[in-house]
């Protein structure tokens, strides 16, 4: 990790839960972005993690905005900075609910307009701030407080929604691979126009695993092929290292499932559907990368 700068932009202790990976991701995002950056944050865990007034844990300006409005607010901010002749990075840092559910309209608009900004969705697969209700990004079978019997429908494929807007750069990342995340943020910010990064961010209280297993959970998500690390530059797909291996020789899905309380008592039928989903995803991306679609 020698290339990652030592400067910290999350300076004081934050108010995140122990083992929170999304606050860790934010740390690497800001290291990559540097001081000439502004964060735009809708209602989410990060609204709390950044610190409580009059304190702040952050060393860059953080503009808090209503739940649905991150991408639209960031659009305005980006246009204004450009009008002022400034290159300041405008980075929306939003949860999966604020992105895939209530914020999807604003995100779509900003992408389509070609807004010069980076939108990062950290995905803990539920509404964390309000105590873990289902979101559109909650995976099939996961128990949340509004799906006490397990979610009956699949995770919304946010990346394909974003992809349909043909942004110049989009990528997936995972908190367990911080250097990969760091490089992707760097690259994204070097490209003009709308950029999108989707980070899988395991969450101990939400996924119900012991706090010290946060890195392991992220790695298992990737190794089982549940989460695939890739980049898409001007439409061209590159699958990244760890996922290349995982797609050829995936670890058993059970390794990922069994450590998480939210997947307790999964029926064999649901597990089967999960496997099929992974299989379909892997095949689709493999075919595309091989130029066979």
């Amino acid at each position: 990790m020698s290339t990652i700068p030592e400067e910290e932009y999350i300076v004081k202790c934050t108010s995140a839960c122990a083992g929170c990976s999304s606050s860790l991701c934010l740390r690497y995002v800001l290291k990559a972005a540097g001081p000439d950056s502004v964060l735009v944050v809708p209602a989410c865990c990060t609204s709390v993690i950044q610190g409580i007034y009059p304190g702040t844990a952050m060393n860059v300006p953080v503009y808090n905005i209503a739940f649905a409005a991150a991408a639209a607010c960031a659009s305005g901010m980006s246009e204004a900075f450009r009008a002022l002749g400034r290159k300041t990075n405008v980075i929306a840092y939003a949860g999966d609910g604020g992105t895939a559910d209530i914020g999807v309209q604003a995100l779509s608009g900003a992408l389509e307009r070609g807004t010069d900004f980076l939108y990062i969705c950290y995905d803990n697969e539920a509404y964390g701030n309000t105590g873990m209700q289902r979101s559109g990004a909650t995976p099939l079978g996961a128990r949340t407080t509004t799906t006490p019997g397990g979610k009956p429908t699949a995770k919304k494929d946010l990346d394909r929604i974003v992809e349909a807007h043909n942004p110049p750069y989009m990528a997936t990342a995972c908190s367990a691979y911080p250097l990969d995340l760091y490089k992707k943020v760097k690259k994204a910010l070097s490209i003009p126009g709308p950029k999108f990064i989707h980070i899988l961010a395991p969450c101990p209280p939400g996924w119900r695993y012991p706090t010290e297993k946060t890195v392991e959970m992220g790695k298992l998500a990737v190794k089982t092929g549940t989460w695939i690390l890739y980049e898409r530059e001007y439409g061209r797909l590159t699958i990244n290292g760890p996922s290349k291996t995982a797609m050829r020789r995936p670890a058993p899905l059970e390794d990922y499932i069994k450590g998480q309380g939210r997947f307790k008592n999964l029926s064999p039928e649901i597990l089967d559907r999960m496997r099929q989903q992974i299989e379909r995803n892997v095949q689709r991306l493999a075919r595309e990368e091989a130029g066979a679609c």
Partner: protein
Amino acid sequence: MLTIATGNKAVAAAVKAARPGVVAAYPITPQTEIVEQIAEYVTDGDLESRYIPVESEHSAMAACIGASVTGVRTFTATSSHGLLYMHEMVHWAAGARLPVVMANVNRALGPGWNTWAEHTDAFSQRDTGWLQVFVGTVQEAYDATLMAFKIAEDERVLLPVMVNLDGFSLSHITQALDTVDIGDFLPPCHLPHAIDTENPLGYGPMTGPADYFRFRWDIERSMRDARGVIAEVEGEFCERFGRSYGPTEDYRCEDADVVVVAMGTLGKEAEVAIDRLRDEGIKAGSMRLRWFRPFPDLDLAGRDVVVIDRDYSFGFGGVVAHSIRSKAGVSPYSVIAGLGGQEVTYNDIADFVRDRCPGEETWFGVNDHV
């Protein structure tokens, strides 16, 4: 059955008893416990409802509208930013004359994220055509939610009802709760203008000024009729279940020289202040305003009135104080207190009475009389 519950759980229990066909749900602090509890009821088979976990509050109310116009009983719950985000649909539900019932857990508005109690969220919807009731205890949250369905669905009303309870101070407090066997208190929902493929009608098409104007007058006429319906329903509720409610809850008001008017939990806390003041020989009473729309007639003439507003209309004044001024014809001492969950105790309320300056406004803890 006698038990204990939080304000949120009491609302959920009332919804279970009312058996809505469709519930639209979206989480927001401090309301979330309501939609979580209903999800559990539905999952466990204790409530046979279609539970729609929508992706935003705008969609929550839109889903309620779509469901309600088929004639099915509908419910949703929200708070603060959620209520504001659904604002367009809040107007729509009333304009479409749909008896949707919604619990709103009163909470302050950002920026400065703040999840504590304030009434500005509900008051920002006061001109939408919704009936609004504010409750002060866990029991009342349950009772008012049950009655809300009956009032909303009454053919003389056919307007949506919002049941308001204070964030945290009521939504999260645990108190005694007596749940009832509702029997036939709630007849099946009957919507005269329900969608019917046998009788195809257009709903809400382009409407010219003259017709539009008549429709608005119809809403107001129903609002006025609602007063009588509310009194009937509250009367029947008292007969069946033994708990009585009215447009206000009056406490030691009969011979009072000074009356405190407040809403929600501050209105209950005021009663403790009144007892203290009476002990000092001050003839004080309190009037907890329950119904805000339709706004009741209040008999306050000839006494000093202290109004506590947990809200504010910037550039104008406390919303309740101004309502009292125009509707009850008195010039109150207007106290702005409790915004964003500011701590206000019975001792503070007693001080408001002792230090009152009729006709003036003060912001508690921030300035003296201005």
